[in-house]
């Protein structure tokens, strides 16, 4: 269920989505196991994006621009239509062409699938000292990737479940201080790709309060996936 309006009144809206590559079409093969998660993401994005379309133009944010943001090793921006060559994931018979970071490709796909055809800004962020973007931000990131004993990218880390539950709670409660206070070292050890984007969100939200909405929290494919929205005036 999409978070309730009125987003038109929002100064800022951040929608958090997972960076799971199988959210991209055809990557998971014929069976499309991520269809349900994709649907949840699209639903979460729909109302904020619709409201963003209806906003009066002008102000400090680019006209009607939506920002897709994800962690990267260096802070960088790309134009909204910069390509992602999916043969980086699928293989092929010739080298892949220039590509934006995978997480941005996932975020962009979800934004377009939710009906946004307007301008996009794509950016990677490397650390919490950078000022985050204003306006409507789609932040791509996940919780721990070492939750399970089998099939994951590394040995199970028993700290994962408690950490991810803490993230779920602070996002569901709109707990800005709690989000800012997440243990950086632990998040890094647990492979949490949401660490920097969520820190930027906490900084952007300042002293709060925020209106929170939690659309999804779970590990259908291993890494902890969160779909949520925070908005504030």
């Amino acid at each position, binding site marked *: 269920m999409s978070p309730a309006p009125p987003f038109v009144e929002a100064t800022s809206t951040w929608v958090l989505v997972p960076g799971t590559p199988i959210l991209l079409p055809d990557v998971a*093969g014929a069976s499309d196991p991520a269809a349900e998660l994709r649907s949840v993401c699209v639903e979460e994005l729909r109302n904020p994006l619709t409201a963003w379309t209806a906003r009066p133009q002008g102000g400090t944010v680019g006209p009607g621009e939506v920002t897709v943001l994800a962690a990267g090793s260096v802070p960088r921006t790309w134009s909204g239509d910069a390509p992602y060559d999916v043969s*980086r994931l*699928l*293989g092929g018979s*010739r*080298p892949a062409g220039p590509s934006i970071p995978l997480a941005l490709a996932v975020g962009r796909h979800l934004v377009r699938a939710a009906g946004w055809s307007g301008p996009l800004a794509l950016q990677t962020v490397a650390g919490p000292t950078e000022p985050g973007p204003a306006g409507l931000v789609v932040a791509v990131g996940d919780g721990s990737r070492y939750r399970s004993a089998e099939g994951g990218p590394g*040995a199970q880390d028993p700290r994962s479940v408690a950490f991810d539950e803490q993230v779920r709670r602070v996002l569901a409660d709109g707990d800005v201080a709690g989000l800012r206070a997440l243990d950086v070292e632990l998040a890094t050890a647990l492979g949490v790709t949401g660490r920097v984007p969520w820190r930027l969100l906490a900084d952007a939200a300042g002293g709060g309060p925020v209106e929170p909405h939690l659309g999804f929290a779970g590990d259908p494919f291993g890494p902890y996936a969160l779909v949520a929205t925070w908005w504030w005036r």
Partner: protein
Amino acid sequence: MTDWQPGGVLRFRDKVVPDHRPLVMGIVNRTPDSFYDRGATFAVEAALDRVRQAVAEGADIVDIGGVKAGPGAEVGVAEEIRRTVGLVGAVRAQFPSLIISVDTWRAEVAREVLAAGADLVNDAWAGHDPDLAAVTATFDAALVCTHSGGLAPRTGPFRVEYVDVVADVRTHVTQLAERALAAGVAAESVIIDPAHDFGKNTWHSLTVTRRLDELVATGWPVLVSVSNKDFVGETLGLPVDQRQVGTQAATAVCAFLGARIHRVHDVAAARQTVDLVASVRGERPPVRAVRGLV
């Protein structure tokens, strides 16, 4: 590369394979938790039975491993040595001319198993231990140079991307092969392995399979390990215990494209697949061609 001829002699210490004949390597896991056999051959007598079975079914090589390849419980050097050295010694005593491979990335383990009579170090983790090649050379043993996609041992791929996975494999395994030569491993004792599923998703592993001829073209003998792997399972939508037919299909493709060594669980099935494909390639006469010729 040296003036050693590609596709020709392969030497494993004192054991020489003189022709193009593809080799079948039977997997013997001395682990309680490997993905396929889950501890079935952990006890030393069970492991020896497995070796006897593999040899009876036509294995040219047995590959003894003491540590599960995937993530899981930590196995230290001492425990890995305990699991492998005694078995290597027992196999060497019972099968004097069998090629014995040990699946380890650790130089300390390699030293002990080579001293106990092993012929081949099957390093699945791309030279993670910088001393492994030199230790292998000290015993004039053979070495497998494997692509791992940059992963540390016993980790799996996380959203891994390649500009060109086959080019990446080719670059890294040939670098490892050159490093092995520089460390003193004999040219006729160096083998390369693209390592299906190691640091690669299913699509990457399928691409490596489809383009295996590019790795064969490097001139180094190619070892493939496709048996019951997840790329077979994901391609067909089948769990780990139902991948036998898919494994033979993947084996056949690799064999047709020129793979030299096939590391497998089911030796008997692989032997038939590999032999048939060798005949298709015109490199092996049928056992008995009489029909239509009498």
